């Protein structure tokens, strides 16, 4: 186990290095720059700004400088948000996204797993069809449509919920619904198919032959085997959901990290692009390690190497 974790850390460092390097050169390859706004800025002013942020130096030198600072944990200063470091931006925005995202993941698990299991148990029934209909909708309908519909009915028509900000717990309801819809649907579908598979296994017949009740054999013998695919999906899903969704955050005016991702790219805010990308990559790596370990805990047949 210790050896496995060491190996994963070494691999993570290599992965991060590749992500940094690729992102750095790719974003510089894209035409344009942070100070090319619609309204013309004088060439002199542009040159001065470039000099201030070190963008006038050759690319290789910029890269070396950046990597050196990165090794000390410094993600640099935002080019567009005056006076704020990338570290500060992530530190203030990430908790907001993580809170909404974390609640969404919990909701997705709490709703998706039972729904998928029920659909499998009642396969072919109207209930199964109903659940799978909504699950298909959840996967097919883009989140901006969900957000707009929620807002139109729950706020505009019926006046039940506030439309923007995060000032009270009611504010969380719509963003969480919008964020959780897709993962809930996905988990329900995964759960249904793996549950169907498990229900047909010989050990489920053994459980019945022992005299176990249906609920007991389901909770003890089926669930633990059927949940593995959901755990696999959970790793990347957690990383993406915790870092926030651009669409949902824009629509509900949530000051989260999700809008920074897109904002940094459209604004060519080089340090912020690097910072958010590295942060997401790290989160994905960490989540995957956690998932691997969770796997081992759930299924003793799995060997971590």
């Amino acid at each position: 186990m210790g050896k496995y974790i060491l190996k994963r850390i070494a691999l993570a460092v290599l992965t991060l290095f590749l992500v940094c390097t690729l992102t750095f050169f790719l974003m510089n390859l894209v035409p344009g720059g942070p100070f090319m706004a619609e309204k013309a800025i004088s060439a002199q002013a542009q040159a001065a700004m470039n000099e201030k942020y070190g963008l006038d130096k050759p690319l290789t030198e910029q890269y070396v400088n950046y990597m050196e600072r990165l090794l000390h944990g410094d993600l640099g200063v935002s080019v567009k948000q005056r006076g704020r470091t990338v570290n500060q931006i992530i530190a203030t925005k990430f908790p907001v996204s993580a809170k909404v995202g974390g609640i969404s993941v919990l909701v997705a698990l709490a709703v998706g797993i039972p729904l998928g299991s029920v659909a499998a148990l009642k396969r072919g029934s109207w209930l199964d069809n109903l659940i799978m209909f909504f699950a298909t909708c959840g996967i097919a309908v883009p989140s901006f449509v969900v957000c707009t519909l929620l807002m139109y009915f729950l706020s505009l028509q019926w006046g039940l919920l506030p439309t923007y900000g995060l000032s009270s717990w009611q504010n969380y309801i719509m963003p969480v619904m919008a964020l959780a819809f897709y993962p809930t649907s996905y988990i329900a579908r995964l759960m249904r198919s793996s549950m169907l598979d498990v229900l047909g296994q010989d050990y489920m017949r053994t459980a019945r032959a022992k005299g176990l009740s249906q609920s007991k054999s389901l909770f003890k013998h089926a669930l633990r085997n059927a949940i593995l695919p959901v755990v696999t999906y959970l790793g990347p899903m957690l990383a993406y959901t915790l870092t926030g969704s651009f669409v949902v955050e824009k629509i509900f005016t949530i000051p989260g990290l999700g809008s920074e991702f897109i904002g940094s790219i459209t604004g060519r805010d080089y340090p912020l692009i690097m910072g958010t990308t590295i942060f997401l990559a790290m989160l994905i790596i960490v989540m995957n390690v956690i998932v691997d370990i969770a796997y081992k805990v759930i299924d003793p047949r799995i060997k971590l190497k």
Partner: protein
Amino acid sequence: MSEYLVEVKNERLSFFTPAGEVKALNDVSLHLNEGEVLGIVGESGSGKSVTAYSLMGLTAYPGKLIGGELDFNGHHINDLTERDFRKIRGSEISIIFQDPMTSLNPVYTIGNQICEVIRLHTSKTKAEATARAVELLTLVGINEPEKRLKQYPHELSGGMRQRVMIAIALACEPKLLIADEPTTALDVTIQAQILELMMELKQKLGMAIIMITHDLGVVSSMCDRIAVMYAGRIVEYGTVDDIFYRPEHEYTKGLLRSIPKLSEKEHQKLVPIEGTPIDLLNPPKGCPFAPRCKACMKVCLREMPPYTDLDEVHYSACWLLQKKEFEAKGGNA
């Protein structure tokens, strides 16, 4: 109340599939005394397993009992609710399955899976159940039982897993053990060991066994009585001697002819039973074996043969026997 441990009278069971009703069991009757071993033989799809599973209420969906009386150890199985059935399963009647590789849950330890059934049916504490599990593993011939309890199924061999399945089945000292082809998935040497173990345990614990198999060698060495099944019917029933030395049904005779013999010369061909089993979705009107039977008569294709009692135990369903009986009584055929 039945005088036997198991009594099945005229059982009919069908699977209601989208393609139509599959008549899996047609008028099956059998009985078994305490401590007796009954072998059920027949080819795939003849209803061997279904007969045994229906005694445990384990008939898979969409199978349904549509007629007959089933009694077991003072319980009238027809009337049992699912809740009552659960109390019997695993305690009074238990089963070992064909494939030990998949019959144990891969994510729980052996100990967990044995203790589960003990604690379900008795009021034993966790420590007592573990002690009983060690006792059971010793009983089924597994060495280092304390260590095995903490192991997972994938860490054991097939033979060992089948021993664990037997330990689970015997945990609550059942009156009846159903063995559904318990050796089919095992190596030949392991097969012999498992069969030996089962006979030894039967002697020690005195439970009755229903042995489902298509291996006639297995039944001849283990069973007191044999039921030969074909297309959802028992075509011949009798003691081991009846079946092996005085077979009356053409199907039984065919089965016996198809056993390879050690005395046979090299390159001698096996004698198969020609043809294929009938389609249970559309069974023919007459005797189900008639299309493959060498002694088939006109009546065989028209009407189902009734059972002919040959002696107190031995009976068979064949028109030839009816004819013989009729002639013996002095009638004119």
